[in-house]
């Protein structure tokens, strides 16, 4: 008989029971501790290009990951096979694998007293994400793209309008008795138009809106218009001569810089001496006006969950307070390595040891609008897009491709491309001279507009 007759569909399985059962069987099989994570999700996505449906994708998937300990040794296995055989193989595999790993004094589950789940409705799941019939989802994508075309005659082509919806459930169980689960929903609209000038030169850009609830999504027309505005303003972009000038980072790219700061503050890079922030706890690393927070408990947030990847409640952690580095971002393992306590930032995929992920990571906004910040720059670059990943977190060296708009006497003038902006994150943190008032969460990392001085622009 083929094995597939034993496969149960996810609707037939209580995923909480399954996770707890797998943990119990691992302990029975000889593990001294264990945890298991189960993921079950559904996704829908559609792209409409030039007014016609280009792709339509719909599917569900699931997976289970098991981590076992034999004393101070750890190993993990994962599978998409929920059949009896598949689960048996998952458990046996982990118990075999743990024999080859090393004793590590810091390995293990969190303390029992650290485990828990945030109470109350965190507003992470909204059924309306799946309430639209397929025709209307396609219509959302079509409307976003159409709005881009309608906004400006120079929009001549498109990578399409898109609508995505997804919902997923995550269960975590461990041998200390923790058993928790949560559901999250997500939807987004995007438009990615292409503009062409009279010489045939093309530019692309995009804009999107994302939310946990359909009701909170921006209208497709607003997304499409903003996408067109961002695209058209790039036409005629040119290179500029190399110079040391103030750089104003649009909040979308500022969030990317802040993401580098997050990575540098993660415990695994700290204990491996692989971050320029290693050993700087309690020191001044930025100006007085710089406060950086991670808040994994914010209701409805893109990075919010009731508990982290190890069953520790999410919380608010002040990472930088008025320029002073107050905390790293830690899971249980990295906290033990550093003689600290977990900050509830454990990330758990299906495979391997837990990593570290942000809750909602943001830089606290200042008082000036982006327009006021730009108005204060005599000559400089307003960066709207990065190209490439040229950041070395060990040294802090930062050198990335950039495009944007030239600032002359406080006004945005012509578009700029094919330049790099470079500096060192240590200096960049100290040289944040303006912070915008325009903080907005478009994903789990958010930053207002920033002006940073002392960087080098390389071009002609």
């Amino acid at each position, binding site marked *: *008989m*083929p094995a*597939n*007759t034993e496969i149960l*569909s996810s609707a037939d399985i209580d995923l909480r029971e399954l996770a707890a059962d797998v943990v119990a069987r691992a302990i029975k099989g000889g593990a001294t501790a264990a945890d298991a994570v189960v993921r079950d999700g559904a996704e829908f996505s559609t792209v409409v*290009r030039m007014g016609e449906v*280009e*792709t*339509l*994708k719909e*599917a*569900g*998937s699931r997976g289970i*990951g098991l981590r076992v300990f034999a004393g101070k040794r750890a*190993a*993990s*296995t*994962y*599978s*998409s096979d929920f059949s009896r055989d*598949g689960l048996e193989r998952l458990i046996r*595999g982990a118990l075999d*694998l743990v024999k*080859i*790993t*090393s004793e*590590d004094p810091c*390995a293990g589950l969190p303390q029992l007293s650290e485990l828990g789940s945030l109470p109350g409705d965190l507003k992470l799941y909204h059924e309306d994400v799946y309430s639209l019939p*397929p025709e209307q989802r396609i219509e959302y994508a079509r409307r976003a793209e159409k709005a881009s075309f309608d906004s400006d005659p120079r929009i001549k*082509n498109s990578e399409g309008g898109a609508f995505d919806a997804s919902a997923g459930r995550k269960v975590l169980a461990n041998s200390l008795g923790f058993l928790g689960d949560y559901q999250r929903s997500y939807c987004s609209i995007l438009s990615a138009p292409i503009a062409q000038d009279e010489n045939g030169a*093309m*530019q*692309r850009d995009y804009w999107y809106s994302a939310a946990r609830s359909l009701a909170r999504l921006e209208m497709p027309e607003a997304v499409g218009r903003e996408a067109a505005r961002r695209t058209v303003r790039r036409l005629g*972009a040119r290179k500029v001569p*190399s110079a040391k000038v103030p750089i104003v980072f649009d909040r979308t790219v500022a969030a990317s810089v802040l993401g580098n700061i997050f990575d540098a503050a993660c415990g695994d890079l700290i204990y*491996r*001496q*692989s971050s320029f922030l290693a050993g700087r706890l309690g020191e001044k690393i930025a100006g007085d006006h710089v406060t950086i927070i991670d808040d994994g408990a914010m209701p409805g947030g893109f990075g919010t969950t009731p508990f982290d990847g190890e069953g520790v409640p999410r919380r608010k952690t002040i990472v930088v307070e008025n320029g002073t580095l107050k905390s790293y971002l830690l899971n249980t393992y990295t906290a033990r390595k550093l003689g600290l306590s977990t900050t509830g930032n454990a990330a758990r995929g*299906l*495979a391997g*040891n837990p990593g570290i992920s942000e809750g909602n990571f943001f830089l606290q906004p200042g008082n000036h609008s982006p327009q006021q910040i730009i108005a204060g720059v005599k000559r400089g670059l307003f960066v709207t897009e990065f*190209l*490439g*990943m*040229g950041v070395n977190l*060990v*040294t802090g*060296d930062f*050198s*990335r*491709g950039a*495009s944007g708009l030239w600032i002359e006497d406080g006004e945005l003038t012509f578009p700029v*491309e*094919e*330049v*790099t902006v*470079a500096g060192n994150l240590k200096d960049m943190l100290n040289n944040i001279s303006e912070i915008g008032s325009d903080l907005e969460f478009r994903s789990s990392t958010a930053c207002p507009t920033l002006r940073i001085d002392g960087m*080098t622009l*390389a*071009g002609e």
Partner: protein
Amino acid sequence: MPFKGADSSNREIMTQNQSLFFQKFGITPNDLQRYLGEALSAGGEYADLYFEYLTSTAISVDEGIVKSASQGISAGCGVRVLSGERTGYAYTDDLAPEKILRAARTAALIARGPGQQPIEGFKHAEAHRLYQVSSPSADADIAAKLELVMRADRVARAYDSRIVQVRGGYADELRQILVVGSDGTFASDVQPMARFSVICIAKNDKNTAKGQAGGGGRVGLEFFQAEKTPEYFAQDAARQAIIQLDAREAPAGEMEVVLGPGWPGILLHEAIGHGLEADFNRKGTSAFTGLIGKRVASDKCTVVDNGTLPSRRGSINVDDEGAPTQNTVLIEKGILKAYLSDKLSSKLMGLPDTGNGRRESYEHIPMPRMTNTYMLAGEDAPEDIIRSVKRGVYAVNFGGGQVDITNGKFVFSASEAYMIENGKVTAPLKNCSLIGNGPDALTKVSMVGNDLQLDEGVGTCGKDGQSVPVGVGIPTLKLDKMTVGGTAS
């Protein structure tokens, strides 16, 4: 090639593969016809099924101990239906017949019309045999893999007392695929992959620095025991970390740039490779649209995308649509010759399918992707190339890169680079990005070395959220002008 007797064992794997989906999951050729029929029930022009069974292992040694070991299995089936320019896609990680049929019905709805029938019977494609492994790394004893990583750890630490942290890793996978199409396509493949990596942190009283090395390919464990050993990677990572301790600020602005052989071929991947993928050109969104037959590089440049090189990370016997991979000339003596195509684009554009239809997994829609992209060797001696530069940058190792297909601008970030002053390689430089414009970057190539090398086997390319393994390569190259993104004036 070094591995004898590879052919016979490879054939054995092929047979095992067909039996995997037929025996383990009880799928029969009749089932496949039925699924394809369901996929075409709303009138699609073409449908295919992609079955995948992937096993992976990863181990890592950090601070001298084995901190992590993981193994996993992922399996599923993706159903695709094409109707004109439209693609319907659905997948399931449950290979029960009713689940595959449901996915087929979902994907079918992209089309509107009378139901179609797949062609009766399948045509087995004649495939390459590029993976010359005596047995896949995935089947090897995990203790043997661990021993290799531990060796790398010891070697890196012994390299220099300033090496303070070492992290070594070994990861392998075995991907078994079966692709069947309503046009009779039937192809299966068992794709091994192994990768070794070493990261070192060096520290002196002033600075901390990182060095990174790694490699592998569609090879067995014996590759790391005999050919590219743990010592090779460990010493290279440690060497780079020590050199970077003394790195000085990189210059800013336009200057002459010399790229070392091998991995700096990421230049080709970003500057031209992506821009030549057929989907972008079909839609007219690439800066290379309409440039076939035109000059896009100096006449010293001939660039190919070759998926048929034995054992290479970017090589595959068949692509993820069941077509055998090819050696495609993209640029010949500076003239643009061809795009990289998959089934959909080749049909819509009337171009040959170059066997570049790839996908990350059964959850993903295939699209045109690169395999191994490299420039053929020229005639210049590498020493002469360096000697010809008055003031410039010599870049030999890179982190990653990115390209904006539409305006053609691309960057790639040097992790090991040096100044060239008066024809001599001098001080090491801090990490910096190089930026250029794809359609004219290669027109500035004035010297091409006689020392073509391919990379060590570390490249992963991302496009539309899908990652696939790729290879790159160049001989030593001189570009007369490129913008270097440093901080020094």
